[in-house]
Every structure is written in C-alpha cells, then in structure tokens.
C-alpha cells in the first residue's frame, strides 16, 4: 500500500504499520499488542475514554493518555507497559472491582468476562482487598425491562450497551441515569405503551456487555436454576 494511506509507528519497540486515521488502541490490538479496555468499541468516532484502562505513554506528550482517543501518527513512539501506566491501570481496575462482591462462580459471565481477562493480564485479584467493598446504593438486581435484568454492582458503566443500542436501533431504549457513584443504566419507559416500542429485543446490549451485568431474564433464571441444582448435588 502507498505511504499516504499507511502510517508507521513504534509500540514497545515493535514497528507496526496501520491505515491512517486508525485509533492507537485498535492499531495495537490488531497487531497483537494487548491493551486492556472496556469502553472502546470499533467504529466509534469519539470514544468516551471513560474506563481509563487503555492508558499508554507517547514520547513527546505529557502524561499517560487513553490510547482509544489518540489517532496514529507517523513516527509515533508508544510505550504500553511503563510503571506509571501499570500503576494507573491497576488502580482503575481495583476501583472497578470494589463495587462487586467477586463471586464469579455465581455469574453468567464467568470464564468469558472481560474483567477476568484483565485481572489475569494485570495479575490482580477479582475481589477487592486494599480498598473497601462499597456496593452501589441500589438493588442487587433491577428488573425494569420486561425481559432484560440488570445487575448494577457488576456493571462497570463502560457504556457499550448505550452505544450499541443507539447504533442498532433508530432510537435507543436504554441510557445512563442518575449521576456520580450511583450512575446506572436505565430502561425507563420500556414498560410503557408506545415508549416501550423502542426496544426491539435485539439483545445487542446483552451480547456486548463485557461483564455480564445485562442478561435475558429467561436465560438468567435457567442459569441460576442449573447452578442451584449443581450446588445441591
């Protein structure tokens, strides 16, 4: 390919070439360099840059920066594993797990959960140790939607579900609600006539959730029943 469309940069000493305009995070992932992330999805114009896990250091620029929001440039020199990056990633991770009880075996996402993958990568426990366990001030399980259940303490508020719903549907049926520590995902109005029509039950939000905080009610019931049976056996 001609030089105009490709950009060459160095990541952790490795030279890689990617199409111009690619986000740095995607460039790394496509070239087998793993950077943990939760909120980034391929195709986002303005990634939220909210999970603060995909931090990298770029020579000549101040401080760690979220790689999801940097566009690749020719000659860029990137470091993904500096001490400061790791320290911040570990803290962000510690913070995210501190709202959860760490009972992975009771969770539908067990073994394919993004947080488990990141835990392994960062060598971090999934149960909060140094920090106190602070569950969010809301019910364990919220059944606002007729067929989707939401578990706020598992939720890392990455916003993938909000994004995917707004992309897949003409209008979206779920959004963030409230603010700060008690920010939540809300299906408000999904039970109301007329308004509820927005949700086409495409289950895109359930499938995109990296941590199993959104599940189909039927599937979750079956899973829990199965689990119960296993435990009693």
């Amino acid at each position, binding site marked *: 390919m001609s030089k105009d469309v490709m950009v060459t940069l160095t990541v952790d000493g490795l030279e890689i070439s990617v199409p111009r305009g690619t986000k740095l995070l995607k460039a790394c992932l496509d070239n087998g360099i793993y950077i943990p992330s939760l909120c980034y999805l391929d195709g986002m114009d303005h990634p939220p840059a909210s999970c603060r896990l995909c931090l990298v250091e770029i020579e000549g620029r101040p401080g760690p920066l979220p790689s999801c929001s940097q566009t690749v440039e020719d000659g860029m020199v990137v470091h993904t594993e500096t001490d400061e990056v790791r320290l911040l990633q570990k803290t962000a991770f510690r913070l995210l797990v501190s709202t959860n009880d760490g009972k992975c075996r009771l969770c539908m996402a067990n073994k394919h959960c993004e947080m488990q993958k990141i835990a392994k990568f960062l060598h971090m426990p999934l149960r909060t140790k140094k920090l106190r366990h602070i569950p969010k001030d809301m019910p364990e399980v919220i059944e606002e939607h007729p067929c989707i259940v939401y578990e706020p303490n598992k939720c890392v508020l990455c916003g993938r579900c909000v994004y995917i719903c707004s992309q897949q549907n003409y*209008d*979206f*049926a*779920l*959004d*963030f*609600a*409230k*603010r700060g520590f008690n920010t939540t995902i*809300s*299906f*408000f*109005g*999904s039970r*109301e006539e*007329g*308004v509820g029509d*927005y949700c086409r039950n495409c289950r895109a939000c359930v499938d995109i959730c990296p941590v199993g905080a959104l599940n189909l009610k039927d599937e979750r019931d079956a899973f829990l029943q199965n689990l119960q049976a296993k435990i009693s056996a």
Partner: protein
Amino acid sequence: MVDNLEQDQEIDLEEERVLDAIAAELPGISRDVHQLIPVLQKIQHIHGYLPLGSIGMVAAHFGIPGAKVFGVATFYNQFRFNPPGRHPIKVCLGTACHVKGGEIILENFTRRLGIEEGETTKDREYSLERVACVGCCALAPVVVVGEKIESYVTPSKVEGVITEIEIQNEIAEREKAKDEQQSDSE
C-alpha cells in the same frame, strides 16, 4: 390508615391533573431537542416537580426515548420527582455554611419535621432539601424557607421558623372559620 389512603388518592388525583395540564401545554413548545432542559425546567417551575408520568410525554413530544429524558432529568440537581411541600425548606450546605454548622441545622430540621432530605411531609406542609450554596456566604448559616432567606440560623431558630409557620397557619384557619361562620349567619 384510612387517612393515609385518602391522602394517597388525593395525591394521585392531583398528579392526574398535573399530567393533563402538561399534555395541554406541550404542543405549543418547539420540538428542537435543545429545548429539552428548558421544557423540563418549565414543567417544574409551573407544577413544582416532574411527575414520572410526564417524562414519557416529554419524550414523545421531542420524539426521543423515555430513557434519554429520564437520564437527563436524573442527572441534574434541579429536578425533583415528588411534589414539594407548601413550605419548601432548603438548607444551604455551601462551604461557609458548612463550616458554620449547616449540617447541624439540617439535622435539626430532619428531627423536627420527621423527614429526611429530599422528602415531603405526609401532610404536604414541608419539604426538606439541601442546596449547594445560595450565595449569601457572609450570612452563614443560611436557610431558604419558601422565598425567604433566613440568615445566621441556629438550632433554636429552626424551632422558631417552624413555629412561625404553624402560628400563621393557625391564624389563617381561624380567620377562615370566622369567615365561614359569618357567611353562615348571613
């Protein structure tokens, strides 16, 4: 028990009236989504709160999902979803008021009225809120009762504020009774 039931029914009826009024007002307003927050403000300004039922109506008006309107309304401090009392009490907990014991003032109202912040008394007489600074820091601690700003508030002044409202209510009631008596005798 019966009283509560009657009160609840009354509130339901009132909410219905509010929703009807909102339904009548909405068509006259621009559908530009930039007007979303101004419309929510207007509803709250007129009716004192945003009934949850109005969220769906506003969403339909702008042609956006209810979840989005709910998300916006729950994001900002200004919006409340239950009706305020006839005497809304706002305790300032700005920096100056905090240093001068605003928290203690709030606690005194909580104890005196038997409600937590963000709540309204069962008889709808008082509602209690904390606000993040009314900008009268030199007069701290400050409490806003209705439209009136009370400055240099102390726990005993809390008692005074409530007593004053109670006395005024009683005077009003007596006068009403007197008027009724007079009109009866006429």
